[in-house]
């Protein structure tokens, strides 16, 4: 039951994009077309679960025993960056089909703050390993949900009458704000 609450909280209530406003660059950058948004969403699910677990392990078995918790941020950056590179090489060799699908999105995630954010949340909330797994997956699903919803809205906005100064990124930010407000309706659900 706790896991379900945790998942719902991560997907809807504390949505990483709309409630926490992390991962803004891919949110705006890859949401112009549904096709790229879907690709990005799957890449994030894949990487975030991996990163969440690895960073949890690094934190629990390396940083805490050595009393080096203050090196979390910089350490995680290094670990995540290496992880993404590693995953890319692994996929290219072992699962070329998946590599072709996720293709250019993988390296983009290296610098995705949503990934970093979730890893830090996992540690700050002092989740257990299983909880960290569920939370990482759920946050990634939330990321994907928000990104795909947003891409759908942006494709519709393209057909609407938008005043010149508000076109493109400006109207996208306004739209993001409104969707975010809608997501605030989930507050208090858990």
């Amino acid at each position, binding site marked *: 039951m706790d896991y379900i609450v945790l998942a719902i909280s991560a997907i809807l209530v504390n949505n990483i994009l709309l409630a926490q406003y992390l991962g803004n660059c891919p949110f705006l950058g890859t949401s112009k077309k549904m096709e790229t948004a879907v690709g990005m969403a799957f890449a994030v699910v894949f990487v975030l679960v991996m990163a969440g677990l690895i960073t949890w392990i690094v934190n629990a078995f390396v940083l805490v025993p050595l009393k*080096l918790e*203050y090196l979390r941020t910089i*350490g995680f950056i290094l*670990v995540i960056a290496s992880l993404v*590179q*590693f995953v890319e090489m*692994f996929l290219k060799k072992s699962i070329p089909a998946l590599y072709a699908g996720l293709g250019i999105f993988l390296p983009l995630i290296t610098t995705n703050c949503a990934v970093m954010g979730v890893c830090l949340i996992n540690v700050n909330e002092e989740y257990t390993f299983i909880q960290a797994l569920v939370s990482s997956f759920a946050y990634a699903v939330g990321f994907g949900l928000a990104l795909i919803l947003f891409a759908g809205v942006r494709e519709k906005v393209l*057909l*609407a009458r938008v005043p*010149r100064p508000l076109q493109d990124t400006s109207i996208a930010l306004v739209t993001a704000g409104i969707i975010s407000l809608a997501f605030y309706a989930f507050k208090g659900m858990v």
Partner: protein
Amino acid sequence: MIEALFFMLLLGAVCGLVLSFASKIFYVWEDPRIAEIENFLAGANCGGCGFTGCGAAAEAVVKGKALPNVCAVAGPEATTSVAAVMGMDPGSSEPKISRNPCEGGDRAEDKFYYNGVNSCQAVAAMFGGKRTCDVGCLGYGDCVSICQFNSIRMGEHGYPEIDEFSCVGCGACERICPKGILSVQSMSERLLETNVEDAALAPCQQTCPAEIDIPGYIGSIREGNYEAAVHIIRERNPLLLACGRVCPHPCEDYCRRSIEDEAVSINQLKRFAADYEMNSGKRLPISVAPSTGKKVAVVGGGPAGISCAYFLRRLGHDAVIFEAMPKLGGMLRYGIPEYRLPKKTVDWEIQGILDLGIEARTNVQFGKDFTINDLLTEGFDAIFVGQGAWVDYNLKIDGEESKGCFKGIDFLSRLSGGEEIPIEGKKAAVVGGGNSAIDCVRNLLRCGAEEVSIVYRRTRKEMPANEVEIEAAEHEGVKFLFLAAPNKVITDDDGNVTHLEYLQMELGEPDASGRRRPVPIEGSETQLPVDILITAIGQQPDMGFKDSSDKLADLQITRWNTFDTDPETLQTNIPYLFTAGDAATGPSLVVEAIGGGRRAARSIHQYLMGEEVKAPEKSLFKRHIEESLFTEVPGVVKKKRSTMTELSPEERIKNFEEVDQTLTEEEALAEANRCLSCCRLCYTPDLDKLEKDVA
């Protein structure tokens, strides 16, 4: 502090080690040429090539999915380097340039009111756009924003203008345009283009058998850019000097201006541009695609053959023209009289075409001096036969072969060949009502014949000759005998012709051609005293070469003695044999032969490149786009068309000087300004031009 530094160093080392081991374990073999090629590409990952980044482009080259010229940014040196890596010939690439044929812009009317997002993609999603023209530019400039090289800007009239110098031909604009208007083409692709149903074509261009971009060159003349006009004409018609003089301009019949006013004098403007080049004393350079190494034999050096050889040469193939007569030009030289098309003009024009690197072998007749087997042994990859229609029809009456009797084309070509035929002071009659008959009578006058008559079995209205030609002959004093059918030729004891006996006719029921059939009146035999009788009642091709080789045994021929082919591809039932001109169509216009020559060159190109020989989809061959034919054209202010100066009849029948003079620059500009710059639906009414002048 120390342990923190130590820890980070350790972490970095671990990560590094893991990654370096991973790169060994998960190593995927990649063609080393990919990296090598990538070095030569621009490295900007601009996507101009259509691949996701330079790496992908390099991979595509190695896999053979892209040509060495894939990178539009890096330029020709990179192409050469990439080709060297791949061991390919770098010459097989031509620069591409984006073109916008739609100049509708503000002129195009709107179907509905729209003020949504400023994007062609968005507007196109609603009923294909707000403009009435289905194929026109939407004017929101998606192409402008996609262009990485700032080569496209939205012009003041609401359609994109392309800067040819900075355009690298990457193709991004072509891909983004939802209407498919912009096309990124190399010169060869432009030369191969034909009229299709969904293209931006004015009625005149739809009508022209050579499909010349008429509004295009008239626009260039209007801007004073005569060289550009010549280049535009040359993309479709290599014989502009000749056509500018002799073309009966079917285009002018469809000129939109002619609905409210006199048609624009299109052909005179073509002649003006062509004469401008000749009189400027230098030839404009004509670009030729890199050599393909293929060789084509062009049999027949008339307009069809010259046109075919010219286009083949520009497409990069080698062409050799074989001509039976001593000089090239065919009917242009031997059929059309000096006073309409001077020989030195023909010489100048043909020399310019041969200078592209076309070999000409004259005085050799196909089927007699050489056969198809010789051509195949010599290594020609395809053969074009455009021998024309040089065999005159007979009258099939008694005494036709008497002394003093000639056949039309035979007479004209002997005269043009410089043969002395005693004509001075003699009475002459010409049988026939076509252009050849008129050419014969006008020639006879100039040779000093005392009296010249035309004998035609129908009335003036039914004469197939061009109206201007008939009028000119009337002015020069030719006698016309209408409704007269030759019955027999009467000779003296020496076999010299003395009289032509003919029957008076009257018009009866209309026949298959819609013309009323002449019926003889009984007992109306009349004798016309003549010393010279010329029969010019039509010609047909000489297919005598067919028996010279068993390879041609299966060649299909129609009952008019022409090649039996698809009129669009002009490929005969022998796959490597192509044709065009009078040999394919029967006696027709010069411009028809030129257009046919280009179509044949297009088919030959497809054949040589191993493609399927076929006409383009939605081809507009000999048809018009219904919606582009108007019944009224509002906004036209009547303006007299510039008339060409011609020598007076008294003056001109004394010699063979060219009768029609070219327009002066002033007249040409005035005439070019009469053009409504039409397209499929758009045109610029005179009223708009007036308003602009006032402003």
